[in-house]
């Protein structure tokens, strides 16, 4: 059986890749993809802890399924927002989306 910390390292790496993408990428779609990476890192953690700590139970797995469903819904909403932003600003660069500041 593969030791647990292998999974955790993978999940941590995935998480920080997502965080880096969220902060560093300028394209809104790329930012959205980075958010999905962060979510997936969390879901891996759910599955791993469920499998290693409570092998008789399935809650962690179900939670991951919930997370995937919610991520899908969130992506739908986010893409709709991004499309509207593009219609209004002809641009999806995060650096230019600051008109609510004023």
């Amino acid at each position, binding site marked *: 059986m593969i030791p647990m910390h292998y999974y955790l390292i993978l999940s941590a790496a995935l998480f920080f890749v997502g*965080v880096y993408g*969220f*902060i*560093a990428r300028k394209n809104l779609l790329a930012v959205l993809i980075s958010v999905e990476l962060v979510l997936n890192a969390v879901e891996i953690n759910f599955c791993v802890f469920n499998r290693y700590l409570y092998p008789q139970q399935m809650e962690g797995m179900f939670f991951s399924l919930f997370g995937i469903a919610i991520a899908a819904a969130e992506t739908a909403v986010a893409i709709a927002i991004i499309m509207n932003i593009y219609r209004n600003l002809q641009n999806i660069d*995060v650096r230019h989306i600051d008109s609510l*500041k004023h």
Partner: protein
Amino acid sequence: MEFTLLIPALPLLCFLFLGLAGHKLCPRAAGLVGTLSMALSTALAWATACIYFFATPHAGGYEQIVPMATDWLCFSQRLVISVGVLLDPISVMMLVVITTVSLMVHIYSLGYMEGERGFQRYYAFLSLFSFSMLGLVVAPNIFQMYIFWELVGVSSYLLIGFYYTKPSAVAASKKAFIVTRFADLGFLVGILVLSYYTGTFDLGALTADKGSLVIASTAGASFMGLSVASWAMALIFMGGAGKSAMFPLHIWLPDAMEGPTPVSALIHAATMVVAGVYLVARLFPVYVFAAPDVLQMIGYIGAFTALFAAVIAVTQTDIKRVLAFSTISQIAYMMTALGVSGYGAQEGPGYMASMFHLFTHAFFKALLFLGAGAVIHAVHSNEMAEMGSLRKYMPVTNIVFLIACLAIAGIPPFSGFFSKDEILAAAFEHDKLLFGVLWVVAGLTAFYMFRLYYNIFWGRERQYHHKPHEASWMMLAPLVVLAVLTCVTGFIPFADFVSSDGAPLHTHIEWPIALSGIAVALVGIFAATLLYRRGGDLPDRIAARLGGFYRATSRKFYMDELWMFVTKKIIFRLISTPIAWFDKHVIDGTMDAIGLSAHRSSSAIKGLQSGKVQFYAWIFVVGALVIAIWQLFF
């Protein structure tokens, strides 16, 4: 007698109508509306007088009757403020005086104010004043009196400042308002002290049964060595002294002459300025029995003011100011008469004399002011130096003015003689010193009135820009009516109607005193004739000889400067300026500091709100990491 409510109500309706819709009417129509409503009030007032004095059965004296009263504010079982109408001999007498003089002024103003801007406004204010003054005299309780007292103050303010584009008129109206308002503060405190102890505002209850309620309720209470009753009555007198221009609160009245002349005749000669006398007379039993020391003081203040104002009047060159000081002097005469009076049939002739003089003075002083108004209208100046020999151009005004001068000088058979004789007799009975002062004042009065008369109607012919003309009939008719009243009112058996306890008083002319009064008046007239009839330079040489005294007198004994010193140098500098500094720097400073700190801190951190989403995320991640590390290691 319920219709007496209409006497003040008609001018009120007229004020509301003219105030709201006056500018839509043509000026003459507005004037006629005001005059007609005043005429109705006058007719009602005369009818009230006839019914009250002749048609109501009265055995041994006139009672106070209250035909109309409703509770307005109920504070407690006992402390109720009602509004209504109270009729007794002096209030009925005042109703007649006010409505008659007011009607004359309304008619006169149709001519005098013709073509002025704000003619409708003028009539609206006249109606407001008439309403307030009538409400004041019929007040059955002291609080209603106070309310109307302030209303006459405000309408006086509005009318003095009628020519509001003239800075001097604005200053004069403010001065009048502030000085009388300052005095009214005393009045209000007096009312509150009195009602705190007696638990009532009702004038009938306060004065009933020789003021026994006041005496009983304030018995034993004293403050700083003076009894509470004396304090209350002295404070109430302060209000009266302010309105009636007693020394040292007289400074507003000469300046009030900035208003239109008919207004001076109505407000600052015949009606409002006697409100103080009326107030003391209204509370007379309380003064006599509960605060005799205050009454004594009123007598001395009155006598001093009478002399003081008469001396100043001799040197003034503005004809309206001469009349203003003469008004102060004559009102002080009335005050002195009250001060020397006692209560009841034997001791009370002073009270009757005071009211009698108030009655006759209202007519002849209104006549003097309206006559002066006709002169001012003709020569377009208030200064004596620009008048002279006007008798050729204005024969009718000349005659009526002469009648009024003779009346105020106390020459029989004109009305002033009778009332002045009663005052002198009452003073002689009570206090020889006061009698002496009043006697001298009588001579001075005759002198300065005839100085005025000769300077206007005799003396040198002046260079007039255009020929002076006699006034129009609308101005002459009130003059003639008032002149007739001046001739006949002295023969009214006043003592039968008005006395301190309501019972008829039996008086007769005290011939030795009357003759001495006539003699001193004749001396005054003779001196004035000698000095001013031909208009030589003798008066100027006498003035030069008197030097400093003359200058001090013509500057009104520097009372204005003294008041300015007290207010500006002492009150403003020592009290107001530190308070203003505290307000500006400590109170405002605290508030400013709170606002400023919010402003500063927000401008310091507003850079964080950049609108850059990724910057927020960066801060969020760093924050989360910091918290995580802190949780792990500490």
